[in-house]
C-alpha cells in the first residue's frame, strides 16, 4: 500500500512548532524517546522499544566451513525483516528503499566497524568457524528504525552466548548448556547510531525523529559512534546539504547521546545477568 502523505495542516504545524521551539510529542530537540530493552528467555533475544517504534533482534549461530582465503575468520550476518506488521506501507517480498538503507547502515555500523571479533569465531583454521546470524524484525514503525535496529542488534550480540566447544584431534564436540557454561562473543566496542533530521533549510536539527517528522524532514544524517568518541560510520543519503560546523555540532550531540545509551544498555544487560545469576565479562 502506498504511503499516505501527512496533511498540509500537520506539515505546517510541525514546522511552525519547531520555529517556536517545540516538538509534536513535547520532547526537546536533542532528546531521545524513552528506550526500553526487554530480553527473551533465550540468550541473544532482545526487544527494543523506542517510543512507539519496536524492533526485535535474535542471534543464532552454526558451525560452517570458512572461505579458503580467510581460513581463520568467522562470519557475522545481519538479516532485516520488514513486514506489514510494522507499517501497512511494507509489503512481503518487496524491499523498500528504506529497508535497503537500514540494512546497509547496520552492516556498516556493526560489521565494517569491526565491533565483533571474527577471528575469535574460528574453531579449527580452514576447517570450522562459527557463523553468527542476527535476525532483525521490525514490529512497529514510528520513525527512526535505524537507531532502534542498531541498539537491538548490538544488545542482542552482547547478550548472546554460543555453546562451549571441545576440540580433540581435529574432532569438534559441541557441549550443551548442562555440560558447560555457554561463552559470550568477544565484542571490541559498542557502536550506536544516532539519527538527525533537518528542517527549515537546516536551521532546526532534531534527534530521533518520529514517523511524522521523518515524512516532513528536508534531510537526514545518521552517525555511528562508540563510547570512546570514535566515529564508526556516517551516512547521509540525499536531502539538503550541510555546513562543516553543522556536522561537527551533530558529532558533539551524538557523543552525549551515545554515552547515555551505552550506559543504559550496560545497565539493562547487568540487570538481566543478575536475574539469570551469571557473571558478565565487561
Amino acid at each position, binding site marked *: 500500500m502506498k504511503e*499516505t*502523505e*501527512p*496533511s*498540509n*495542516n*500537520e*506539515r*505546517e*504545524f*510541525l514546522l*511552525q*512548532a519547531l520555529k*517556536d521551539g*517545540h*516538538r*509534536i*510529542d*513535547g520532547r526537546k530537540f536533542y532528546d531521545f524517546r524513552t528506550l526500553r530493552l526487554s530480553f527473551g528467555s533465550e540468550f541473544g533475544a532482545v526487544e527494543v522499544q523506542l517510543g512507539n517504534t519496536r524492533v526485535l533482534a535474535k542471534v543464532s549461530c552454526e558451525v560452517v566451513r570458512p572461505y579458503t582465503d580467510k581460513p581463520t575468520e568467522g562470519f557475522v550476518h545481519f538479516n532485516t525483516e520488514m513486514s506489514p506488521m510494522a507499517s501497512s506501507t511494507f509489503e512481503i517480498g518487496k524491499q523498500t528503499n528504506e529497508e535497503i538503507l537500514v540494512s546497509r547502515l547496520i552492516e556498516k555500523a556493526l560489521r565494517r566497524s569491526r565491533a565483533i571479533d571474527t577471528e575469535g569465531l574460528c574453531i579449527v583454521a580452514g576447517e570450522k568457524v562459527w557463523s553468527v546470524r542476527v535476525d532483525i524484525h521490525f514490529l512497529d514503525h514510528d520513525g527512526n528504525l535505524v537507531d532502534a535496529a542498531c541498539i537491538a542488534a548490538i544488545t542482542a550480540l552482547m547478550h548472546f552466548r554460543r555453546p562451549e566447544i571441545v576440540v580433540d584431534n581435529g574432532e569438534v564436540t559441541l557441549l550443551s548448556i548442562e555440560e558447560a557454561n555457554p561463552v559470550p562473543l568477544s565484542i571490541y566496542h559498542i557502536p550506536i547510531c544516532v539519527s538527525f533530521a533537518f528542517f527549515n533549510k537546516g536551521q532546526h536539527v532534531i534527534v530521533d525523529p518520529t514517523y511524522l517528522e521523518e515524512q516532513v524532514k528536508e534531510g537526514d544524517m545518521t552517525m555511528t559512534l562508540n563510547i570512546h568518541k570514535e566515529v564508526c560510520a556516517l551516512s547521509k543519503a540525499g536531502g539538503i546539504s550541510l555546513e562543516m560546523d553543522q556536522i561537527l555540532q551533530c558529532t558533539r550531540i551524538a557523543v552525549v547521546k551515545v554515552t547515555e545509551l551505552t550506559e543504559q544498555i550496560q545497565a539493562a544487560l547487568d540487570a538481566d545477568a543478575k536475574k539469570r545469576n551469571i557473571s558478565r565479562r565487561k
Partner: protein
Amino acid sequence: MAPKNKKGQADAADESTSAPTLRVILPGDQLPPHEANLPTGQDEDAVSMMIDQRAPPTIKLGPGLTPMDDDTIISVKAGVLNHTDIGNRWWVESNQRRYVAAPGESVIGIVTGKTGEHYKMDIGTAQPALLPVLAFENATKKNRPNFNIGDLLYCRVAMANKDMEAELDCVNPTTGKSDGFGELKGGFAFKVSLGLARRLLDPRQAVVLRELGKHFPFETAVGMNGKVWINSASTAHTILIANAIKNSEFLSTAQCQSMVKKMVERI
C-alpha cells in the same frame, strides 16, 4: 469449544447476576436468546425472532453482531455488549485501528487527488473514498470550492457499500446547508484508535476534552475514522492538547483529571 457449550455457560452466568453488568463477548459467541428479548423455549435451537408475544417483536443489530441462517445471533467482534431499550438495539462496543466506513458517520479526510468530478480522499479505509466536487454548500458547476492535495476536510460518509469506494459529502442533502462540514484550516491533526475517537464524541465520556476546556479555549473536530483535529491560540497549547488526548485512552476519570492538571502545570 462448541458454540452450544458457550451459550449454556453464558446463560448460567447471567442467571446468577441479574443486574446489568459489563458483558465482554468474543467473535463467535452467541447472544443468549432471552437477553435479546427472544423467547427461551425448551429447545433453544428452535427459537425464532418473530414469534415472541411479550417482548418487542423485532430487535435491531448494530456493529459487531450478525444474524445467522437459523435465527441465532452471533458476535463477529471482541468487545463489550451494549443494549438500549429504545428500539431494542444491540451492538458491540469494540476498539480497532483500521476504519471501515459506515453511512452517516462524520470523518476527517485528507485530499489525495482530484479528478473532474471527484476529490479522492484518504479517510483511513483500505480504499480511498470519493467526494463529489459539488457536494458542498451552494456549490454549482461554475462556483465551487477548490482544494489542494493535502488539505484536511471534515465530511460525512454518504454511502458505504461493501467492495465499493465510500462516497462522502460536505453538505446536508435535505437542507443544502454545510452543517459544519468543510475544510479544516490551520491547527494540527493526529490519529487515535477508533474506540477513543468514539469516546471523544460522547459528551458523557469525553472527560479529557472537558478538563482541557477548563484551562484554555480550543477548537476540535473528531472523525469516527480516528482522526482528531485541534486548533488553539498557540502551538504549545495545541501540542499539549494533542498529547493529553493521546494519553487519555486508558485512564479513568480521576487519572485523566490529574494528568491534564500535571501537563498544564508543566507548561
